[in-house]
């Protein structure tokens, strides 16, 4: 038994419960959010350390043995995801101190934030299919509420599209769970994988896998299921967008990776070819969308879609180096994308808009902010030597190794377009002079941020940018974990044994 697994769940939900109980005390909520996130970083680090040293960790809450109770399982992939979630939570919770408005705070922003983290971590750690569904629903309802919190017109509009499509996705997922239970008689992923190793119902299992593909495909916003994302992500306050921005879709990708490495490996020639077919248009359509937008948040939202394509592509390649690349890509993307949203938020505070036609002159006036944007953007565009380069390099290497010329050709072209759309922001908002008609500050209620707020806004941005640089330049220890994680994914027996034969 390993209690380390429960802390990444316990800490955020306890924080959320306390924030709810004392919800009238705004300061209490704000600080417990930060403290809870900091504690989560510590707990995640311990978990990662333990998994890295001692292999896959399993916890049976309720002490019911493996296929009967719910298992919490942390392999390196999960532990890395939990770790990055913690870091992101800490960064965004600090940022929210400088950004969140009083109305939203007093209607539960902080506890919702923590519950979202709780749901995300649960999805990363659970080893049970139905339980995964529950975690998805926790995330889903929390993201609904966070998305609509504030009731702006565009928020409600975005929320309607988000809610309807995602509810459909959940129900498809739930049907899939029912079908898998109906076939294998168990919900435990390890037991399910074990039972399916020599199943005679391959066709049926593959059919069910397509339902999961659709459901997780919606969550991770792949082509042609991504519409809800660009329709809604630009509507809430930037802090919320930043929470969603990189994390929620990655849970979908995580689930796809988990299911298509552990459970659905009966007919890789079929399932993973479909994944490959999906990945290419996802990359292309996403990046073209980004190239056609002028709202910074929309550009970044479309980029999320595009980069999901890379991850799915790596999963479809299904080699060790490809899977290591997928994990790297996810982690990198969470950092870079979060930072870009946060930077966009600060830019808006200073210049008053998210729209490129109304932005300008930031390079001249705010060199620090410009540097932060440049680091994140260069990383996102996949230029060396930052994290984005390694992510892209690894996946592309994997593809060339197995001779996927056409797919890699698309991936490289998309990389160029990514670079283009990053320079679009850079040139429109940073280099070009401020347009004459642009208001200095669009918001009527605008107040110059206080020194404390500025610190709250800049600190997380610098923190993440620092991580991007450090991980980019000193990658060795990190890659050692990634390759171990890929080993664990490629050899499901490690996972199965860890759960079923502790």
């Amino acid at each position, binding site marked *: 038994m390993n209690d380390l697994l429960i802390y990444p769940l316990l800490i955020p939900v306890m924080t959320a419960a306390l924030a*709810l*109980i004392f919800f009238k005390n705004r300061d209490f909520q704000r600080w417990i959010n930060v403290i809870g996130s900091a504690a989560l970083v510590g707990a995640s680090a311990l978990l990662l350390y333990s998994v890295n040293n001692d292999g896959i960790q399993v916890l049976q809450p309720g002490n019911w043995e493996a296929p009967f109770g719910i298992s919490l399982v942390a392999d390196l992939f999960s532990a890395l995801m939990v770790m990055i979630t913690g870091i992101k939570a800490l960064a965004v919770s600090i940022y929210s101190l400088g950004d969140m408005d009083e109305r939203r705070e007093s209607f539960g922003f902080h506890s919702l934030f923590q519950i979202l983290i709780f749901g995300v971590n649960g999805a990363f750690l659970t080893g049970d299919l139905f339980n995964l569904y529950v975690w998805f629903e926790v995330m889903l309802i929390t993201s609904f509420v966070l998305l609509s919190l504030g009731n702006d017109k565009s928020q409600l509009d975005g929320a309607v599209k988000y809610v309807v499509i995602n509810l459909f996705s959940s129900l498809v997922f739930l049907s899939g769970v029912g079908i898998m239970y109906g076939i294998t008689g168990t919900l435990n992923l390890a037991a399910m994988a074990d039972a399916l190793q020599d199943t005679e119902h391959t066709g049926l299992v593959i059919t069910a896998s397509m339902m999961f593909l659709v459901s997780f495909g919606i969550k991770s916003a792949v082509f042609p299921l991504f519409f809800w994302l660009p329709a809604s992500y630009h509507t809430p306050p930037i802090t919320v967008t930043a929470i969603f921005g990189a994390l929620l879709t990655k849970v979908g990708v995580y689930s796809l990776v988990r299911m298509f490495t552990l459970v659905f490996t009966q007919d890789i020639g079929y399932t993973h070819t479909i994944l490959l077919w999906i990945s290419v248009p996802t990359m292309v359509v996403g990046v073209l969308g980004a190239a056609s937008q002028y709202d910074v948040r929309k550009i970044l939202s479309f980029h999320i879609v595009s980069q999901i394509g890379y991850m799915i592509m790596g999963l479809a390649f299904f080699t060790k180096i490809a899977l290591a690349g997928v994990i790297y890509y996810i982690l990198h993307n969470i950092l870079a994308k979060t930072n870009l949203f946060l930077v966009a938020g600060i830019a808006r505070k200073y210049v008053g808009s998210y729209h490129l036609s109304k932005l300008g002159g930031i390079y001249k006036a705010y060199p620090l902010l410009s540097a932060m944007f440049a680091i994140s953007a260069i990383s996102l565009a996949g230029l060396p030597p930052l994290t984005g380069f390694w992510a892209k390099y690894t996946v592309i290497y994997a593809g060339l190794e197995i001779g996927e010329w056409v797919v890699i050709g698309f991936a490289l072209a998309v990389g160029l377009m990514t670079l283009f759309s990053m320079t679009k922001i850079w040139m429109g908002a940073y280099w070009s002079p401020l347009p004459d008609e642009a208001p200095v500050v669009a918001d009527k209620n605008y107040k110059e941020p206080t020194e404390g707020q500025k610190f709250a806004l800049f600190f997380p941005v610098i923190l993440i940018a620092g991580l991007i640089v450090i991980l980019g330049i000193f990658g060795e220890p990190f890659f050692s974990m990634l390759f171990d994680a890929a080993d664990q994914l490629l050899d499901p027996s490690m996972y199965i044994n860890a759960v079923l034969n502790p």
Partner: protein
Amino acid sequence: MKSVILQTATRLLFPLLLIFSVFLFFRGHNEPGGGFIGGLVGAAAFVLFAVAFGTEITRKLLRMDPRVMVGWGLFFALLSGIMSMMAGDSFFTGQWVFPILFGSELHVGTPLIFDIGVYLVVVGFTLAVIFALEEEDN
């Protein structure tokens, strides 16, 4: 809608419903019932009260915001798990004591505390929704 008949009936029904919900709650471990079902019936009592006397009085009667009640519910549910951990077991492992009450042995354990959490959250949720919608009416 503040009719006298309804108010009188409510004065009678409200405690009955509450007792019934507690009954359903405790029955749950052995017969159909439990935290969710009990919670819904308990919430129904307050909803009835709100329809008869208005939400303002009901809120006073409840003494706390429904959302705080949700918070407490989560807290209780977690508490059951934390107690297991303090006892050295895995999270959510049932911890039991067997007090003898009126000559019969009772099973009292952390799953019961967990179910209390469920009950509170259900009541909190239902009331948050109904209060909000009711007050929107007026």
